[in-house]
């Protein structure tokens, strides 16, 4: 067994294999706790808000939003990019860290992947409903239409996005489910009630952990990680091209793809930390999600936060240097115009706040990390808001300059997606093992 004494153990508390099984199956096999019910109820209430505001949008029309001829993308696309970005940490943790053989990923990858899937659900709502007639949401698919063979436009980044997001969602689901199979089999073999035996048996697909299956399983997982890595990079690259391939000052920038990918990882890790710090506390998983894990994640936050900060400054310098007055105005307007408060919130939250993680105390103090993770989430939402709204609200023609403020419907939909996200997450925490038991069992004796 590999051991480097300079490192801390990955799982503390001297756990045995059966301890791992018992600890991680406990929430599934017992009645939900009061804190679970509390969180789940809040999620459901917000989910009802989502249902209500979406129903009102469909019933009354897209005019219930304040998006207009100048600011045609407002909160909706801001939220879309925000949620897609959040999803990225899951794939990054499970795929990229698997390729880099980072074993600390093993206690967090399951919940991060779940987060990816739920975040992409939330993201998909926004473009679908922004199309106005959501029942025609299948139109972006390459299907022959009723008027002849007028197809979708393959030169459009918006179409690339349809392919990228749907591939991302389905491949993430497959990756997640494949990782779950051995653990579902563990729950099945411990089950005592008929329903649990049947359903976990159904989804375990007859898994019995034979050495032959494990051999194939590991190769499949490795290849899935290998193809998910370029996939996750491509998804946010394509999302950034929705902006970068236009000619709007503030959007028309070649730095967008790497900048968006770094921002996505940054915001994703922010959300992973927010969720895991809660889960760790509520479910008593301090031995599995140790301070080492938190420290490793805060280092990723520090790195990607700095990359994002560098991108902000680079963008500004390039605009100043371009000699192109519209581009220069777009950036001056961001910093000192009517939305300056949003710009400086973004600068504070994303560039300044994560720098506290240079300190070891900040990296290992859970409550402090929790606060900063919320700050990061807020900052990254404002980043998308700044990019979208400040670039659009004052365009080339001063007569079409407007201000944009969200209506209660737009705010409600955004809050509602948190309801969807948390409802899904709490159901996941109740019915599926939150930590990958099979993988954790391979490292309980390891230090790395």
């Amino acid at each position, binding site marked *: 067994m590999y051991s480097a004494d300079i490192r801390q153990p990955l799982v503390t508390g001297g756990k045995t294999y059966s301890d791992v099984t018992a600890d991680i199956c406990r929430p599934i096999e017992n009645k939900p706790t009061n804190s679970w019910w509390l969180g789940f109820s809040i999620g459901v209430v917000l989910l009802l808000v989502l249902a209500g505001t979406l129903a009102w949008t469909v019933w009354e029309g897209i005019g219930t939003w304040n998006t207009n001829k100048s600011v045609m993308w407002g909160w909706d696309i801001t939220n879309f990019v925000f949620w897609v970005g959040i999803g990225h940490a899951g794939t990054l943790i499970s795929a990229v860290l698997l390729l880099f053989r980072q074993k600390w990923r093993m206690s967090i990858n399951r919940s991060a992947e779940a987060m990816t899937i739920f975040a992409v659900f939330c993201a998909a709502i926004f473009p679908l409903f922004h199309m106005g007639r959501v029942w025609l949401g299948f139109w972006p698919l390459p299907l022959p239409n009723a008027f002849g063979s007028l197809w979708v436009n393959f030169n459009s980044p918006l179409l690339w996005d349809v392919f990228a997001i749907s591939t991302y969602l389905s491949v993430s689901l497959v990756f997640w489910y494949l990782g779950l199979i*051995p653990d579902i089999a563990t729950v099945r073999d411990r089950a005592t009630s*008929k329903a649990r035996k049947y359903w976990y048996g159904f989804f375990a697909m*007859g898994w019995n952990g034979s050495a032959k299956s494990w051999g194939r399983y590991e190769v499949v997982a490795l290849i899935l990680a290998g193809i998910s890595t370029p996939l996750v990079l491509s998804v946010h690259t394509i999302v950034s091209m929705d902006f970068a391939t236009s000619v709007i000052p503030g959007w028309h920038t070649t730095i967008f793809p790497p900048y968006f990918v770094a921002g996505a990882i940054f915001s994703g890790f922010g959300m992973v930390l927010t969720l895991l710090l809660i889960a760790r506390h509520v479910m008593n998983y301090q031995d599995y999600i140790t301070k080492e894990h938190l420290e490793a994640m805060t280092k990723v936050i520090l790195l990607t936060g700095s990359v994002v900060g560098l991108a902000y400054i680079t963008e500004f310098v390039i605009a100043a240097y371009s000699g192109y007055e519209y581009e220069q105005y777009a950036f001056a307007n961001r910093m000192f115009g009517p939305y300056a408060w949003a710009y400086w919130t973004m600068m504070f939250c994303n560039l300044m706040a994560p720098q506290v993680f240079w300190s070891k105390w900040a990296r290992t103090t859970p409550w402090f990390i929790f606060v900063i993770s919320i700050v990061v989430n807020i900052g990254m939402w404002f980043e998308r808001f700044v990019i979208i709204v400040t670039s659009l609200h004052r365009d080339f023609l001063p007569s079409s300059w407007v201000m944009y403020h969200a209506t209660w419907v737009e705010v409600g939909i955004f809050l509602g997606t948190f309801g969807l996200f948390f409802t899904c997450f709490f159901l996941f925490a109740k019915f599926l093992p939150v930590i990958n038991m099979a993988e954790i069992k391979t490292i309980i004796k390891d230090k790395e």
Partner: protein
Amino acid sequence: MIDKSILLDDKTFTVGIFDDSDKLLNAVGTLKKKGVKIFDCYTPFPVHHLDRALGYERTNISIGAFLCGLLGSLTGFTLAYSMNVVDWPMIIGGKPQDISVFTSFIPVIFELTILFTAFGMVILFFARTRMIHGIKEDLLSRRQTDDHMVLAIDNGEPQDMSASEIQSLLASEGAIDVDASRTSFNTSLTDEDELAKQLMTK
């Protein structure tokens, strides 16, 4: 559920139960050296080098995955080219619609390559491992997905050693339990009392 076991059906096994992956790995090495034919091992987590110790060759599922990816690329290209160039060219902003816009087809080709690789490979994996929703699982120990590792030797297979020699060899390698005739059972379809009775008789 499909009530037909297709993996271990109608076989009886000599099993050695281990609680440590290193001991299992050593036992497999020793048994192999002495010429004992091992049927398979069942572990709750992937034990590194176990497949090599058992003499399994690396799966060539990656070739299947590559072919699926190739099919995905071709599908992506065919889709974009036939729709936007052959069938109904859309002239937008006076830009050409011929093979010279190939670069703008690349994102779709790329995504479909990944999609086809992932799904093709996982479907191949399920088919090869005989996994499908609702199939009956074959277990040799109730705890083989929890904390026990099972080394199984098919009693129907002719061995150079006698059965008692194999059993004492398993015990000397650190097996916490050795059973000379065990048949497979499943947990998800069997009633709990009946399962207890079955396990008692075995």
